[in-house]
């Protein structure tokens, strides 16, 4: 196991002391199989215990450790230090969110928007228990499965130019959740979600830049989901015009 030298230029911000964020630079000697998260953990343990950041699973399933590395939204646990060997990497909190402290962002806006799209199965009538479970074929599952892989890491929001310019935009992950449930054969809530999805700040503010899908660490393809959502929402609207609306 050999060693790699890197330098992390980390954005620091203490809300109780600072007017503005500023960068601090930390040289770190890493093992060659470390991720950037390991280097940050090393800094916290041995160099500067004041640094704040979110992380948990260290295996790209919890979605906690999203940061900007050299301007790209990434999971810190999925960014090998090998890519930055003998270089300085700039580490900042996820773009387009207010900074709480250091690398920790305020996620409230996303949490609100996620609630608004009703990301859960909605039934018009529940089946009585005796009738058994809601069955779903492999094909029906496959239809929406990819969109279930979202870990809410918010890298897509950090990459989305429309979310940067239009803070009201509901955004890639939340809208993908709406589409995921609309596509679920067990769900009957499409009409209920339309209220949010069909707003200008819903599907329509997406300009299909595709940045969200580029950066998504779980390959959810929110850009694809959003275009499908636009088409489905348009069809619903036309159906509504001729009196055939509602699912």
């Amino acid at each position, binding site marked *: 196991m050999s060693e790699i030298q890197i330098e992390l230029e980390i954005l620091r*911000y203490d*809300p109780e002391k*600072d007017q*503005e*964020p500023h960068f601090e630079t930390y040289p770190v000697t890493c093992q060659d199989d470390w991720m950037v998260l390991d280097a940050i953990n090393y800094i916290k343990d041995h160099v500067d215990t004041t640094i704040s950041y979110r992380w948990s699973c260290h295996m790209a399933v919890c979605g906690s450790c999203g940061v900007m590395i050299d*301007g790209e939204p990434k999971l810190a646990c999925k960014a090998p230090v090998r890519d930055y060997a003998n270089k300085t990497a700039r580490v900042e909190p996820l*773009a*387009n969110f*207010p*900074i*709480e402290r250091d690398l920790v962002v*305020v996620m409230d806006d996303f949490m609100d928007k996620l609630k608004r799209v009703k990301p859960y199965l909605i039934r018009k009538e529940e089946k009585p228990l005796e009738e058994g479970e809601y069955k779903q074929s*492999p*094909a029906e599952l*496959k*239809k929406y499965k990819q969109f279930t892989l979202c870990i809410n890491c918010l890298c897509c929001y950090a990459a989305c*130019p429309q979310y*940067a*310019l239009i803070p009201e935009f509901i955004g890639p992950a939340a809208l993908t959740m709406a589409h995921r449930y609309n596509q679920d054969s067990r769900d009957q809530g499409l009409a209920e979600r339309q209220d949010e999805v069909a707003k200008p700040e819903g599907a329509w503010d997406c*300009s*299909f*830049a*595709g*940045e969200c899908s*580029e950066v998504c660490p779980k390959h959810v*393809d929110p*850009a*694809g989901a959003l*275009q*499908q959502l*636009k*088409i489905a929402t348009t069809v619903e609207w036309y159906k509504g015009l001729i009196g055939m609306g509602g699912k």
Partner: protein
Amino acid sequence: MAYVRPVSKTRWYRAKRSYTVHMLQELTSLFVGIFALILLWGIGSIAAGPAAYQAFLDGLTSPLMLLWMWITTIVMFYHAIAWFSVTPKAMPVQRGEEFVPGSIIAGAHYVVWIALSLLVLLLAGVF
């Protein structure tokens, strides 16, 4: 007090190459719109008669128009290629359990594109 980082409304697309490319793709629609107006002018001149139509054709030969049409032609091909490459994402086709690969959907678009183009060339008197 949480710190909100400012975003430039006018220069954000220069921060990353992919943002710039996206902006340029959006601006291809300017050429689409202007070409539609040129075609409208042509249609109007056909309605007005052979003399007006000849004036339209003569108008096309000016150096500015030639340059514009060269740029428009290149931009239109770029628009088509960009559009066909993203269509499979917007309209996935599920056959049984699996989805038809995007390359097949895009490929089908190209086949139709070529066939349609040959037909139009025929109709326009190119051959």
